[in-house]
């Protein structure tokens, strides 16, 4: 497997292969084809950053463009999923969840429980998250903690092209509602991705780097920051273990706990705001379940408790980075 493609192309390929395989898979979102109702090119956009580009050419009207009515079209995806389809619906940026959250939180997530187990709702919601684009307070948020808080949703945060493809295919085949979060600053990242279809099961963390001195759990784009920090620490003889949970609901507690049992120390790296976050979630689990093993305070490296700022200097200070992670690690060595 030596073919390298981008995170963005890996997502596109996963969608294409699943649409090919299963007629009940449909794709919908703002401008996911693009150019409808115009006199110019059809398939003009493939979504705002081009992730679904080309699918319209291959699958025609199974790629549905939508009016700017997130609640209605995401709700439609939920309804269609409850009636035998497997929609992959895009909420362009996760920051927009405020206009359509009910359909995910109170409808999709709760149907099965409210209906006594007598329904399945295999809807996938793709959405972009995260900072680095100087896109300011309403287009740079992370927000997956909010989604992970809701029982009934599954939440997936791939950090590499390989994981993006395998996890997205898993999402589409899964019978529960899943939110698939794409970090917009990773779209250009290239990595090895098999051409053939494959899946990665939910709840299976990836040990990105082994180490005995300290455990870092990092999410999404932060996995790469953590790896950078670990590489730098290794030069001074500190062996850090870096874990990428890949899915945060469900989450692979066993791998995280086992690592902390070994290292006795934990740093959690989460690009989100700190309060009630995945960083606190992982910290809390570890202090409950691996307390005896802990030999130092847990450290969290997160964005501060402020909205994302616009200016590049401020955003660079805002997003966790390798230097901050390294400092957090050193503070508890």
């Amino acid at each position, binding site marked *: 497997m030596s073919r390298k493609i981008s995170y963005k192309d890996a997502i596109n390929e996963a969608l294409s292969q699943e649409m090919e395989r299963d007629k009940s898979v449909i794709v919908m979102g703002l401008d996911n084809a693009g150019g409808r109702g115009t006199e110019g090119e059809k398939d003009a956009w493939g979504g705002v950053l081009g992730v679904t580009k080309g699918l319209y050419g291959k699958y025609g009207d199974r790629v549905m463009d939508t009016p700017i009515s997130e609640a209605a079209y995401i709700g439609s995806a939920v309804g*269609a999923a409850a009636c*035998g389809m497997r929609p992959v619906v895009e909420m362009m940026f996760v920051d927009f969840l405020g206009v359509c959250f009910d359909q995910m939180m109170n409808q999709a997530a709760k149907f099965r429980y409210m209906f006594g187990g007598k329904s399945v709702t295999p809807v996938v919601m793709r959405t972009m998250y995260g900072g680095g684009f100087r896109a300011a307070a309403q287009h740079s948020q992370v927000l997956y903690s909010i989604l992970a808080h809701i029982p009934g949703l599954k939440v997936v945060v791939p950090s590499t092209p390989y994981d993006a493809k395998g996890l997205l295919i898993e999402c589409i085949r899964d019978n529960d509602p899943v939110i698939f979060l794409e970090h917009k600053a990773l779209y250009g990242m290239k990595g090895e991705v098999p051409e053939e279809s494959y899946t990665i099961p939910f709840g299976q963390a990836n040990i990105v780097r082994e180490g005995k001195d300290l455990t870092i759990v990092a999410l999404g784009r932060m996995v790469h920051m953590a790896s950078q920090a670990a590489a730098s620490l290794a030069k001074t003889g500190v062996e850090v273990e870096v874990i990428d949970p890949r899915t945060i609901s469900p989450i692979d507690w066993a791998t995280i706990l086992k690592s902390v049992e070994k290292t006795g120390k934990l740093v959690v790296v989460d690009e989100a705001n700190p309060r009630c976050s995945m960083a606190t979630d992982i910290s809390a689990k570890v202090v409950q379940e691996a307390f005896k093993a802990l030999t130092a305070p847990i450290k969290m490296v997160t964005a501060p408790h402020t909205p994302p700022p616009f200016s590049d200097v401020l955003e660079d200070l805002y997003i966790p980075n390798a230097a901050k992670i390294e400092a957090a690690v050193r503070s508890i060595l």
Partner: protein
Amino acid sequence: MSELKKEDLLKAYRIMKEIREFEERLHVEFATGKIPGFVHLYAGEEAVATGVCMHLTDQDRISSTHRGHGHCIAKGVDIIGMMAEIYGKKTGTCCGKGGSMHIADLEKGMLGANGIVGAGPPLVCGAALASKFKGTDGVGVAFFGDGASNQGTVLESMNLANVWNLPVIFLAENNGYAESTGVKYNVPTPNIADRAAGFGMPGVTVDGNDFFAVYEAAGVAIRRAREGGGPTLLECKTNRFFGHFEGDAMTYKAPGEVKRQREENDCLKIFSAKVISAGLVTAAELEAIDKEVAALINEAVAKAVAAPKPTEADLLTDVYVSY
């Protein structure tokens, strides 16, 4: 009237009567304190759910509201299971996990009562979309109230249904009130159906207490939808006989308002009078149905009361298919 065979007329009457009896009985039982939670009764509005659902089969889908019992019954959901559900019993339609506000039966094309005002129309758009992709001629009907007609989801869905040319009927049940607030306050036009034109679809208003008016208008809209003609907004003006939910003293209604409605605008009375005077059905035939329905509701309550509750083992199941 002429369109309907006698068996259809009897069926329509039976459904309306089942709803009425179900609701009147719940009103009584609720007062005893044995029924948990919020209960919103549909009594008075039976002709609407029935007139619409008489056109539907199990492959057609509806979404309902917090006031969902009537829609469920009209769509064929089992009454014994519904009653048990409302009592919070393991034998209920949703194993006691949903309750009055969440009764659903996907096999019957009933996508669920809903505790969120306006949540249904998007779901029904999706159901209708599924019908299109699956190549059935199934339609979707979104029931919603006059109050719900102001929720963004409802308005967005009307537009979406037209953009996607979906076989959807937006069924506005205008019972004059959203909780304690009059429709005259919340809706600045004479009819909710006036909103249809702005989304490029036909809008029709009928007397929702007249089963036949509902049946006919729904028939037109549903045929149109089945044939690929797109969505319709159909408004049915009706009354609710009980409070917004059980426990509501209805002081916001004019004194005697409900009494007058029960006397002059009761869809069951209107229906009976019409079919009997037209000689299509006899009073005795309807009375026979009344008896059967009374027995059915008695049975439903007795079974619900006797049924077992869910147990601790049920608490954590059915959140996910797999996790």
